[in-house]
């Protein structure tokens, strides 16, 4: 993509953001389906941004997608998260498709043409968020056909999805880390809602529990071997980058709004601009800047890895990308807390027209739990044993 095309996407993202702003509060308050938000993204041609031009997509890169996620999140974090995860699914399909599987290529072209949305089904009740294992197994009825019977306790935008990308165990006798990734179109499945979504925050994601059932074919399987490679090469890095981008965008928005409010001269509440106020603001700024720099650094490192065409990223990259998620989720939540201290009761704790701090606070509380930070910390502790000589060489 050229710089001019990138700029066009950015302006498009801002226009979409402005419309998202108008609906975000109602979606959050009434816990309604985010259909309006997703339709806005579809109409803005953002659903195929990361699909290469030869498949009819926008041909954008991950840096651009990260910027777009930040902008969208400044209007509605839930919609931005849905879009970010959709980008993660798109990249996973593009980068890991098996060249002999025309079905997947054709599907990517259709997704691109119709601006369709892919939901992700990785969590299971028994194993929680662990990406490297699966409980539900495929039941093979012939060499080529199988039955998929899978519960997804939390599926973001499950009721709106055109496609589902699902992790399952190869067959019931397989080890739990013998995971396959299955892509299924909505009309290939019987979909039953299992639970409704009534959370503290991220209410606009409508992440209901669903049950998926269908007779599918071998061609629905994205890749037959080596699921860990997909997770390390694409699912985890892109997921963490897009999540961190969205959280960062939402935090930047309330920071900017807070400062505008403080600077309104008629706003007496903040007119005694105290040292305390400046110190808190600087703490928020420090968090935003640190996450921003770390995010940009990881985008560069990830691009370097992809150019180098190694099979697996290094242990150091694994640690760094996990740290991006851990750091962004913990620190940006702290930033919303600090902003609430600054804003106080009326413009902070209470829902109001001027600044959605309480929504950002509730939304960002989920960040640590989405792919639990404890799980990542455990992995990073172990990985450190392999990579501890950090001095320059």
């Amino acid at each position, binding site marked *: 993509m050229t710089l001019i095309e990138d700029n066009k996407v950015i302006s498009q993202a801002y226009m979409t953001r402005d419309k998202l702003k108008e609906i975000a509060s109602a979606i959050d308050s009434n816990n309604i389906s985010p259909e309006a938000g997703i339709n806005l993204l579809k109409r803005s041609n953002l659903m195929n941004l990361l699909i290469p031009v030869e498949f009819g997509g926008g041909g954008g890169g991950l840096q651009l997608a990260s910027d777009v996620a930040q902008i969208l999140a400044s209007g509605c974090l839930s919609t931005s998260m849905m879009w970010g995860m959709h980008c993660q699914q798109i990249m996973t399909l593009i980068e890991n498709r098996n060249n002999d599987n025309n079905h997947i290529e054709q599907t990517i072209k259709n997704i691109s043409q119709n601006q369709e949305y892919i939901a992700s089904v990785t969590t299971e009740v028994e194993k929680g968020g662990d990406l*490297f294992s699966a409980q539900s197994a495929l039941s093979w009825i012939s060499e080529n056909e199988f039955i998929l019977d899978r519960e997804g306790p939390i599926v973001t935008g499950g009721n709106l999805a055109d496609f589902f990308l699902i992790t399952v165990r190869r067959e019931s006798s397989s080890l739990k880390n013998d995971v396959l990734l299955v892509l299924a179109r909505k009309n290939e499945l019987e979909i039953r809602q299992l639970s409704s979504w009534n959370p503290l925050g991220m209410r606009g994601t409508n992440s209901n529990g669903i049950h998926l059932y269908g007779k599918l074919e071998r061609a629905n399987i994205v890749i037959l071997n*080596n699921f860990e490679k997909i997770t390390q090469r694409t699912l985890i890095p892109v997921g963490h980058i897009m999540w961190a981008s969205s959280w960062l965008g939402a935090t930047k928005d309330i920071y900017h709004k807070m400062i505008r409010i403080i600077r309104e001269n008629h706003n007496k509440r903040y007119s005694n601009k105290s040292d305390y106020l400046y110190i808190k603001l600087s703490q928020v700024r420090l968090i935003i800047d640190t996450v921003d720099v770390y995010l940009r650094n990881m985008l560069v490192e990830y691009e370097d890895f992809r150019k180098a065409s190694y099979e697996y990223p290094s242990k150091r990259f694994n640690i760094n990308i996990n740290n991006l998620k851990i750091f962004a989720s913990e620190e940006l939540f702290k930033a919303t807390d600090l902003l609430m201290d600054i804003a106080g009761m009326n413009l902070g704790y209470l829902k109001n027209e001027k600044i959605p701090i309480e929504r950002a606070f509730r939304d960002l509380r989920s960040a640590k739990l989405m792919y639990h930070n404890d799980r990542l910390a455990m992995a990073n502790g172990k990985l450190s044993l392999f990579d501890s000589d950090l001095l320059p060489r």
Partner: protein
Amino acid sequence: MNNEFLKIISIFIKSDLTQNMIDENLRDLGLDSLATIELLLEIEEYYDISFPDEYLSEKTFSTANQLWKVVIQLVNMENSLV
């Protein structure tokens, strides 16, 4: 390669490792990255050795054979120091 060594690796992969599998890629046999680290700790404890940083590479853990060569080398170094 001794059978104890094969048994230790077998804890972390899909099937029991036999002598004719020692040149197969351990990742393909189901050794994921975190399992690699657990395997490392297990081997270090069992053979009372410690892998220097420069041995902690993809190559060392690529096959059972490759890993065994490194273990033998480290065990010998350890013995010559005593």
